[in-house]
């Protein structure tokens, strides 16, 4: 079985992601259906937390998978916005990406209009 860590930690991670998501609407994350569903599901399985229970492990696996989904999408979007979301880069920016700088010539190159 996959080692998932403590369920409380997974729930905290999920709530944290829900807080990020709620920035889109500006409504508190505690009002969302996802929050209510997650808290209810975690509460329903809390009684068994000390025992090796298949249903509990299954729920925790799904919760951890959902956490991975939300976290990866957030990080993927951030990378996308930064590197791929603005169209084609200028020559200067492209050079900067790989740590180079375009050469500068004092007084221009002579062929500018």
């Amino acid at each position: 079985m996959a080692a998932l860590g403590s369920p409380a930690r997974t729930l905290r991670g999920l709530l944290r992601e829900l807080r990020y998501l709620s920035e889109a609407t500006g409504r508190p994350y505690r009002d969302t259906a996802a929050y209510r569903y997650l808290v209810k599901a975690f509460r329903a399985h809390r009684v068994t937390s000390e025992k090796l229970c298949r249903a509990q492990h299954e729920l925790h696996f799904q919760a951890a998978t959902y956490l991975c989904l939300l976290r990866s999408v957030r990080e993927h979007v951030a990378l996308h916005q930064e590197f791929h979301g603005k169209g084609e880069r200028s020559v200067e920016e492209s050079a900067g990406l790989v740590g180079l700088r375009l050469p500068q010539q004092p007084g221009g190159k002579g062929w500018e209009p």
Partner: protein
Amino acid sequence: MWRSCLRLRDAGCRLLTQPRGALAAPARPGPTPQAPARAYAPPTERKRFYQNVSITQGEGGFEINLDHRKLKTPQAKLFTVPSEALAIAVATEWDSQQDTIKFYTMHLTTLCNTSLDNPTQRNKDQLIRAAVKFLDTDTICYRVEEPATLVELQKNEWDPIIEWAEKRYDVEIGSSTSIMGPSIPARTREVLISHLASYNMWALQGIEFVVTQLKSMVLTLGLMDLHLTVEQAVLLSRLEEEYQIQKWGNIEWAHDYELQELRARTAAGTLFIHLCSESTTNTGHQGKLPTLHGWWPAGAG
């Protein structure tokens, strides 16, 4: 339906802007403009046109409402999903879109659309065969012969997973360094086909999606059987890439970008498989929960 409108509008814009520039450029002999507009522009994203996202339970399952409109699939079918948890996750995807709708981040919606529309028009047998065919070219069964450190890494990381799958399904899989890949016995194929046949169409769409993401049937089995976490499966699928990153360095806009995308897709597919294939979470109501623990020995709770 709105998606086809979106496409039409985009094509319209392109028709309006493109020919004008294309005609003007060769006709004018003067100096070229300072910063010529280049062809590549980021993909357009549609504005968020709704305020509230809600879920209703209809006859066919759970439906998503954007304000007062019902969500439809690209083929204009009503969007209904069999599980409440899945409906909530899809609604959360729609509700978390800020200003513009980013379809490339909405993997669960995409998977549901694929299942509802079945755009490839395949039946259950074809889906199962497509997934099992990946076993012939399974990432973790292909091994390198050099460099020695990578050989050892592959052995240490991949062998335990193959052993687990062989024991779990009582089949023979093996690995190979030949370009032809390992020869999978016919019995292995039969066992896996009959195992996959116990899943429904929705789950099978998810299984095929995950298999094609990870390029591995064995790793997908690990996710289906709760043997691996998504992070572990993705790491194992990218093992050689991770090795090269350790040796040559990490590039954020290529390696991290792909890692996060692969993780997101694999997690979405895995969650989709689990939510669609089990009956316990289909109705997440408290009244139904005791049946979930029905197999327990008396007094264990």
